[in-house]
Structure formats: C-alpha cells, structure tokens
C-alpha cells in the first residue's frame, strides 16, 4: 500500500511536469530540452528557503515560481533569437548551465552533497497546524495540485490564447501577418510552463526530503519530452496518461523477471524499444491530436 501511494505521488508530480511541458511543446511547438532546469529551480528554491530560512512550504513554492518565471523570461528571450532546431540546442545549453550551478555554487546548494532534511509542507492558521507528513496526506495534496494545474491547462486550451499557440506551432510567420506578436505569446507560455514545473519541483523536494543535482539533468528533460510525446502532444489528458505510463513502466518491468544482474539494462532497452515502436506506428502519441 505504502508502495502504491509512493508511486501515485510520483505520477502526480510527473503529471504536473508533463502538463506544463505540453503547453510549451504540444501547444506552442517549442522544442524545449530544459524543462528539468525549471523543475530543479523550483526544487532548490523551495528547499533552500524552507531549510535555511525556515519559510513555510507554500510561500517557498511561490518564491520558486517567481524565480523560475523570471529566469525563464530571460532564457525565453535569448532562445527566441535562435532559429528552428537551434532552439532545442540552445535550451540544452541552458539546462547544462543550471545543472552546473546546482553542482558548483556550493555555499547555496551544497553541490554534489545535495540538500537533506527538507520538511514536509505544513499549513498553519493560528493554533491550528497541519503537516502533510504521511504519504497519504501528501498524495491528497499532490492530487489537489495536479487538479489545479490540469484545470489551468484546460482553461488555456479553450481560450483564444490557446488557439493562437497552436497556430504558432503550425506557421508562426503566417500568423504574424494576421497581426499577432507571436514572440509575446511564446514568452508567455514558456514562463507559464516554467512556473508550473517549479511547483512540481517544490513538491518533489519536500516529498523526497532530499535533492541533489543528479535529478535535474538533460536526461531528465529528455525523459519529460518522451512523457509528453508518448501521451500525445497538445492533449492535457495525454500528458496525464504519459506520466502514468512512463512512471509505472519501470515498476511494471521490475515484475517481468529479468535475471537480476541485467535487469536494469534490460529495462532501459525495453523502454527504448517501446518508444521507437510507438513513434513508428502512432506518431501522435497515445491520445494526442497532432504529429511533430
């Protein structure tokens, strides 16, 4: 039971990551290989603020959103100078920079040692104080966050803003001729995506109670891309399904019973093969509407 609760929390955190990356990749068509950086900025900001400055989790998470938003606005502006595939390459560079800041600015991040002893969220009203210390209560909290993020994404999808994002993905230059300042739209969605990813980071840090730089690498960004692509681009439901599938897949493969000395590698292989097969036969992902 404890194990299932643990998996469900992880699915929740990855759902938020997938939903937010889907806004950027699925709707606006921006190939961003740096989502893990914003995930990490949220995690580190809230971890540092709660451990060193004893700030409440929810305030710390909000600060994480601000940090991610400001940095993403800057990064987005720089990336907007790149053309086509170079955006993806530039975004990789940014992920590497953020990761090496986590690793090297040791006064703040403790570098490779990571930050241990991060507290679970707690709510305080006067004398009433509730801590989400059990995994079940944390799960409830994550579900609430996932629901909020999901409804925000649905709201965006239904809005005129959402339609304009899809048009940008299809033909940005043509859309400009019809009077859209597409750069503003792309920056807006990039910042929203980064802000939401940072919330996932805050949740992750306080759930695991320990973070180190190894979670926030390009590998993680690529993993997130595959979650969104597998679930289906430009579909919020798809993002949820992708998160569910790719978080549970390694657990599922654990039960297939590869000999233990090669199990880890075999899981990687099976995982890779499944992605390739899916992209060959269902390029729009499990429930997506749109092909890259």
């Amino acid at each position, binding site marked *: 039971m404890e194990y299932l609760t643990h998996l469900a929390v992880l699915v929740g955190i990855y759902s938020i990551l997938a939903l937010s990356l889907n806004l950027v990749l699925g709707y606006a068509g921006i190939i961003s290989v740096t989502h893990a950086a914003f995930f990490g900025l949220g995690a580190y900001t809230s971890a540092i603020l709660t451990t060193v400055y004893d700030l409440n989790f929810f305030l710390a998470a909000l600060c994480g959103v601000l940090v991610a938003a400001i940095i993403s606005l800057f990064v987005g502006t720089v990336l907007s100078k790149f053309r086509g595939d170079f955006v993806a390459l530039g975004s990789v560079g940014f992920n590497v920079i953020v990761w090496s800041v986590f690793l090297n600015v040791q006064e703040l991040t403790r570098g490779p040692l990571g930050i241990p002893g991060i507290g679970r969220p707690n709510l305080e009203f006067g004398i009433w104080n509730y801590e989400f210390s059990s995994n079940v209560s944390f799960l409830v909290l994550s579900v609430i966050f996932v629901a909020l993020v999901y409804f925000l994404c649905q709201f*965006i999808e239904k809005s*005129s803003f959402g339609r304009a994002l899809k048009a940008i993905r*299809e033909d940005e*230059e043509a859309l400009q*001729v*019809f*009077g*859209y300042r597409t750069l503003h739209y792309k920056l807006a969605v990039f910042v929203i995506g980064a802000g939401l990813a940072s919330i996932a980071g805050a949740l992750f840090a306080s759930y695991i109670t320990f973070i180190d730089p190894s979670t926030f690498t390009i590998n993680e960004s690529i993993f997130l891309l595959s979650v969104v692509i597998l679930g289906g681009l430009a579909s919020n439901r798809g993002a949820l399904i992708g998160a569910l599938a790719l978080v549970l897949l390694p657990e599922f493969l654990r039960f297939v019973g590869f000999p233990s000395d090669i199990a880890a590698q075999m899981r990687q292989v099976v995982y890779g093969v499944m992605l390739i097969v899916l992209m060959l036969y269902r390029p729009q992902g499990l429930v997506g*509407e749109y092909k890259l």
Partner: protein
Amino acid sequence: MTSTILQTKHLFKHFDGVKAVDHLSVSFEKGKITSIIGPNGSGKSTLINLLTGLVPLDAGEVIIAHSLHFTRVKSHEVAGFGLTRTFQDVRLFEQLSVLDNILVVLTERGVFASLFETHGTLHLAQAEEVLKKMGLWEKRHSLAINLSYGQRKLLEIARVLAMTRSARTGRAADIIFFDEPFAGLFPEMRKVVVSVMKELRAEGRTQILVEHNMELIRELSDEVVVLDAGELLAQGVPNEVLAKREVIEAYLGE
C-alpha cells in the same frame, strides 16, 4: 476621381546576386483591382512579401494612404495598416480545424486579453458567414491538412475575408494581396473566387492580384502592372498594357 492608396518608391531587394525587386516605384489605386503580371521569377511574390513584412527591404520606401511612410516594417504590424494577403504556396494552420483557421484571425491579439477570452457568438457568426461563402462550412470540423488542394486555397481566401470583417488588429483589412489565388482551382471554384473579388471591389476595398491567366486578368482588372526582372515594365488599363509590344515580348511572346 482616383486616389492612390499604396505606393512604393525605389523599392529594392536582392537575394545573393538576383535583383528580385529592382528600384520599383509603383502605385495602386483605392478600390480597384490591380493585376500584377510578369514572367516567372519577375518579383511579383517578392513585392508582396516586402509589403507585408515577410522579407525585409534592402532600400526604398512604402507609403500607405499618403500618410504612413515606412522603410522597414515587421510582419505583425501590417494587419494594423489594413493589409492582408494570401500565399502562393498555401499557408494554413494545417493541424487546426477549418473553423479554428478562421477564428484565430477574428479573436483578440493581445496576450492577456486572449487568455481571458473564448470565442463568442459574434466570432462564430463571422466565421460562418465567410466559410459559407467559400462553401467550407460543412467542412468546419476537418483539419485544414485534410482538405483538397482547391479547398485549401478557398480557406485562405475565407481567412482574408474574415480579416475584412474584423477590426481586432485596429483596422479591418482594406488592402488585399492575392498571390495566384486561381492556380489549380476547378472552374466552379474559380467562379466563387471571381465573385468574392467583385464583391470586395463593390465594398470599396483595394485588391492586388498576381495572376497568369489572361482571361481572368481581363475580366477582373481595372489596372495592370507588368514586372520584368524586378522592374516596372508597364502600367495602365488592361487593353492598352496587354497590347504593348514590349509586354507581349517579355511575357506572352513565346
């Protein structure tokens, strides 16, 4: 009385060695259909691209309605000047529905305003009107990518019509560039486009048409502009211009 609404002065654009538009000074009359003709590669599409900010000018000046001068323009600004266009190589929002292709040019352009707007009954009514006119209303839920070639060209024209119905960019479109809108259309579809252009003229809008078909040019044009190697070869009423020896040599000769 005629009045010039759009004018270029010494417009110049070259692509590594090729002078696509060569010191071109030409003017277009308000409320008329002006056809631009010329051999392949004579700079017709480049001229439209320059005027709609898709390609930056090397030199020269553009004047709209005698008052607005510019030497450089960003493509997101031109809609605010009342300019809109179709594309020779049809450019739709392919993986959006036919209806969304129209709604997107009818709704709010500002980032924040659009975030808090969903399309309303007015937008739908406008979209219905232009899609019905182009015979695409039944197809409104199909993705643009799944339309036939002719339907795709008609959808581009529906999008331009929508731009004439909406002033969301600050100004409803009243100068329209059509870059070979008839190419590849069946006769039935051509008739639809011809009647749309005549209606737009009756509404007083200025249209600039790039076309190769002489019959259509004679039927529609109030004026003809002939380009050759990016230079202005002739301009005037169709009968006179099309009878000129140098025009025939440059264009119809072979």
